[in-house]
């Protein structure tokens, strides 16, 4: 029993030990107790957002774009600074611009960026930019990657100041966009882009960066209040930044939109109009801080298309302020070209007209030629033919044939200066000569040197002494004659022409030591003076009929050509450009040009009957004061400077007759080429100065000085003019003529008796020349039916001496085109034979 109890107790104890650890761990230490209750957080479910299927918008049948008759300048888009921009994104804007008659032009750079080792090496492209903007309407710059240089910015500023429009975009989600860099270009226009982005977590179009913008409120005293175009428009920007500066806010972000940088603010400007009044750019710059709104597929959301239209309207508004260099953008669609008062257009003028026409056609304009009446007889206002006019003429023609210069307030002033020219005189044996050089009969040769005075303008008193060296026998003493000014001379100022001629004595007259220099100026109403020979005047005038006159005026053909060249090249550098008149420089020609038009003659070697075979250089081998070694050919100067539009040229008669007689003739048109110089004439054996066909044809003092300089050096000169000598201008009517036998060669073949003119002429009475017939030979006289019958018509003063000069001087005091054709032809041939005889 005791053993049983003992074993029983051990069993129980064992059981207790078996259970004790579990009880202690579980109930005592509560190792299994977990008092954790999961938080009662309900499940969160998200209902699927329905995928909106936008309603397809039917494309409206847009009418054909603006029916502009003229091609407007394109909108230039800057890709030359390597924006990370896909050109395809410009399609919606391009579409809108096309509706407004504008196209896009991409400015693409030729810079090899892969060769650049630093961004500082990116070159200036201002020259290229200027070329791009020359005809552009607007410029678009979107997040440029490389810096704009100061020169490029200056070009852009000038463009905008001239009326061009500028769109500046800095979009934060365009790769490489850097507002500090864009601001280098933007700040001159008063625009500042901030280096932030705007976002709206409350109200957005699918992403916090797609924020809404609204029309800015109207404010007083702003450059430009918001246009009504975007009022009530729901527009979203897809990644944009804020704009500030001296701008007029057009659109701003809604109040719930915030800035990543500008904390504590709202209502940020996102569309603004900038520009600086002081620089003439106010209101012509549009700043935008998002580009995506203008692209697919964003532009079809909400009212974003109105934003596209707004930008297109801005870029297409306004017109460039067209100044002279903007030729031909200020001309209308139809343009007429007139060559002054010329009645015939030569090949050079035709080529020039073709160039102008081509240039105009590039811009959708047409050019037609017109006669010289286009300026003097413009169409009436409202006339369908009231086209713009391009007028090319020299100053003289413009002055005499139109009122244009007077309308512009420009007058032509001519000043004459008599200067002393020291001349070396090679003394000949025997007797020193004396020649009167003053209008007084008491004058002495010494007095010649005292005539170096500045004369009143337009009132010239000068004395010209043609020097001839007659051949005389030693037995006869020299005899110098002076002639006094006629007391009854018609000229208001005394003018004396003295011919020192004697026969029988070998003399060498003293070279005249005075020279008259005539300078022509253009003087404006403000008193500005320009040297006419060195100035090209381009004027832009609105006529009474509303059309535009563009006049290119020069002293001569060279000046006109230079002006047209500037127009075609749009090169008005070294020009002073005004609103109406532009004065351009024309450097003096180094080598004056010569004309050989209208004849078979040339300036090269030519073997023709009657001519010595030699080449004639334009400049000759002689200096003005040195006779050339050899003279050949005939220079026929058609002095048509004062020619009327319907008057026939006498030079044509000379030309026909001389060429018919196989003479080599060079034709010089003074109206186009200007007055020839002594160098031009010096190489010719015979110079004919012809203006007898023109009622107003006269020689000026300067002309006389020129031609007598030629004679002085041994040249042979014929002046064929109704008023051949200044100071001998008493007019009287010539109806017929008779021959004189003093020089039989000249009248050979002409009929005896009175030779009636086909048409009576008014010409100077040359009787004073015959006052001393000892030095003058008369070949033709006025006939009995003419006033001042018996007065000389063809006078010769020749030197038949064996001296080296061999000069001859002939005056023809009527227009040969008044004679019967057969008579003039024979006379001219006789003149040629006699003048060119050895």
């Amino acid at each position, binding site marked *: 029993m005791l*053993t049983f109890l*003992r*074993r029983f107790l*051990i069993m129980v*104890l*064992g*059981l*207790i*030990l*078996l*259970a*004790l*650890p*579990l*009880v*202690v*761990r*579980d109930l005592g*230490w*509560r*190792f*299994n*107790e*977990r*008092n*954790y209750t*999961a*938080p*009662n*957080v309900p499940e*969160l479910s*998200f209902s*699927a*957002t329905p*995928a*909106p299927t*936008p309603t397809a918008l039917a494309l409206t049948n847009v009418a054909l774009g603006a029916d502009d008759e003229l091609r407007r300048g394109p909108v230039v888009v800057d890709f030359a600074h*390597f924006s*990370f921009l896909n050109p395809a994104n410009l399609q919606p804007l391009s579409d809108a611009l096309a509706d407004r008659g504008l196209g896009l032009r991409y400015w693409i750079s030729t810079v090899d*960026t*892969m060769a*650049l080792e*630093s*961004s*500082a090496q990116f070159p200036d492209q201002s020259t290229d930019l200027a070329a791009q903007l020359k005809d552009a309407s607007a410029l678009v710059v979107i997040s440029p*990657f490389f810096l704009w240089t100061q020169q490029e910015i200056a070009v852009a500023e000038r463009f905008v100041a001239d009326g061009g429009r500028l769109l500046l975009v800095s979009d934060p989600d365009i*790769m*490489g966009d*850097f507002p*500090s*860099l864009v601001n280098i270009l933007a700040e001159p226009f008063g625009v500042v882009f901030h*280096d932030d982005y705007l976002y709206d*977590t409350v109200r957005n179009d*699918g*992403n*916090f960066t*797609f924020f809404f913008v609204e029309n800015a409120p109207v404010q007083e005293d702003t450059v430009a209040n918001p246009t009504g175009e975007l009022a009530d428009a729901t527009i979203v920007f897809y990644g944009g930044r804020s704009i500030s500066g001296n701008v007029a806010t057009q659109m701003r972000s809604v109040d719930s939109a915030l800035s990543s940088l500008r904390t504590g603010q709202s209502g940020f400007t996102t569309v603004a109009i900038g520009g600086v009044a002081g620089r003439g750019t106010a209101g012509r710059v549009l700043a935008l801080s998002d580009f995506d709104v203008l692209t*697919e*597929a964003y532009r079809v*959301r909400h009212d974003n298309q109105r934003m596209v239209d707004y930008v297109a309207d801005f870029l297409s508004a306004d017109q460039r302020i067209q100044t002279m260099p903007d030729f031909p953008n200020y001309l209308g669609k139809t343009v007429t070209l007139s060559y002054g008062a010329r009645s015939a257009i030569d090949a050079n003028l035709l080529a020039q007209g073709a160039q102008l026409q081509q240039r105009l056609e590039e811009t959708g304009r047409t050019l037609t030629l017109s006669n010289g009446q286009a300026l003097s007889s413009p169409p009436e206002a409202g006339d369908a033919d009231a086209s713009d006019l391009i007028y090319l003429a020299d100053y003289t023609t413009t002055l005499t044939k139109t009122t244009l210069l007077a309308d512009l307030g420009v007058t032509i002033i001519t000043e004459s200066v008599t200067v002393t020219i020291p001349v070396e005189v090679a003394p000949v044996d025997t007797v020193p000569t004396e020649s009167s050089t003053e209008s007084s009969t008491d004058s002495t040769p010494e007095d010649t040197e005292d005539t170096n005075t500045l004369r009143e303008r337009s009132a010239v008193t000068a004395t010209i002494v043609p020097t001839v060296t007659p051949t005389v026998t030693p037995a006869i003493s020299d005899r110098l004659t002076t002639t006094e000014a006629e007391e009854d001379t018609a000229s208001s100022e005394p003018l004396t022409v003295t011919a020192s001629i004697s026969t029988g004595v070998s003399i060498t007259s003293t070279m005249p030591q005075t020279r008259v220099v005539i300078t022509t100026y253009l003087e404006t109403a403000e008193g500005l003076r320009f040297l006419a020979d060195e100035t090209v005047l381009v004027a832009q005038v609105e006529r009474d009929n509303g059309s535009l006159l563009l006049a290119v005026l020069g002293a001569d053909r060279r000046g006109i050509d230079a002006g047209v060249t500037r127009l075609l090249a749009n090169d008005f550098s070294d020009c002073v450009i005004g609103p109406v008149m532009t004065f351009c420089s024309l450097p003096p020609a180094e080598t004056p040009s010569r004309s050989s038009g209208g004849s078979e003659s040339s300036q090269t070697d030519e073997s023709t009957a009657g001519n010595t075979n030699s080449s004639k250089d334009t400049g000759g081998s002689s200096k003005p004061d040195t006779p050339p070694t050899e003279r050949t050919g005939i220079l026929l100067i058609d002095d048509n400077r004062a020619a009327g539009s319907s008057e026939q040229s006498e030079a044509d008669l000379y030309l026909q007759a001389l060429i018919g007689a196989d003479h080599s003739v060079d034709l010089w048109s003074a109206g186009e080429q200007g007055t020839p110089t002594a160098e031009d004439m010096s190489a010719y054996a015979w110079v004919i100065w012809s203006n007898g066909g023109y009622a107003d044809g006269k020689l000026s003092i300067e002309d006389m000085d020129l031609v007598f300089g030629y004679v002085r050096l041994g040249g042979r000169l014929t002046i064929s003019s109704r008023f051949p000598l200044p100071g001998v201008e008493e007019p009287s009517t010539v109806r017929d003529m008779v021959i004189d036998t003093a020089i039989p060669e000249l009248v050979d073949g002409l009929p005896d008796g009175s030779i009636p003119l086909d048409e009576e002429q008014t010409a100077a009475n040359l009787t004073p020349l015959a006052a001393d017939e000892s030095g003058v030979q008369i070949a033709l006289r006025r006939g009995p039916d003419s006033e001042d019958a018996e007065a000389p018509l063809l006078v010769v003063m020749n030197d038949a001496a064996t001296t080296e000069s061999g000069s001859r001087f002939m005056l023809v005091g009527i227009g040969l085109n008044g004679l019967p054709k057969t008579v003039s032809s024979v006379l001219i041939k006789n003149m040629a034979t006699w003048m060119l005889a050895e």
Partner: protein
Amino acid sequence: MKNNSWELPVSLGFLVVCLAVGLLIGEISAPKPAIGVVRFADVLYPDSVNRLLQVVNAAMSDDRIAGVVLEIDSPGGYATSSESAFYSLLQLRKAKPLVVNIDGIAASGGYYMAVAANRIYAAPSSYIGNVGVRGPRPFDPYIDPMELSTGPFKLAGASRFDQIRQIELLKTAFVGNVVHQRSHAVLNPLKVDAAAVAEAKLYAGSEALGIGYIDAEGSRNDAVKAAGELAGVTDYDVVDLFDYFGFDFRIEYQEPVFSFEDVVTKVFAAAPASAIYFLDSRISLPNVTPRSTFEQHLLQLRAAAPLLRSPLLDLHSAKTQNQAATGKGD
């Protein structure tokens, strides 16, 4: 009476055996609870999340594990991986207390994991938050000259605006879950609204405490203590769950980390260009938009230009150089 001298030792032996067996039964039936610690120090991608889930599932089924402390040091990663981790941890939290200790950074997807916990502890210098989504810029549908497909969105997957909308959906879910979970936090509920959370700011630990992103400042020990409190245990072991369960892996960066950029670039080297991320904003997205040689050259020129610097461009520049080094991006 017979003398049984063998009874005493036998009896003693019996009692000892009973005691031993009892202790064993007690150990097995009522083990000392343990707080398991698991450290997640990696970006969120399928591999790393799978390892985490293995540990989490094991902890869920082990009765001894009274609570789990998840130590996070992650800038986030794939959106899908982040969501997977979040929802798995939510399941764990239903069964056992989960306390998170942020050791360094819990940004984006890393924080997404954290909000599944009962409590979040973090050091004041930790970086927390950045709640948002990142992905490539939407693009328009296209056709490939080398392929013929059916359906207008077969190649692109969605229209431009569908892509935008989908990113917003992910953001809505992410933000919604963060707001929902933290609003129900007992200790320090969320003090800002969804809009503020959607701003995706990255907060320092002390800031995060102020707005309710975390529950308290502290360290691992605080997290362990909290887990014990939540579990209702006062006497417990602290075990490393990888060792406890005999796993031979860890969830840590494979190599010494000099920058998350390196890690992300390597880990996500094979990621598709269209991948979506819950990723720290300071890290460039890998392979989002491969840059051509030309574009890379331009960006390098810009990076070297004086006065033309911006954080974004610096990031891109570094990324470009990294891509050039790893041969990616051409």
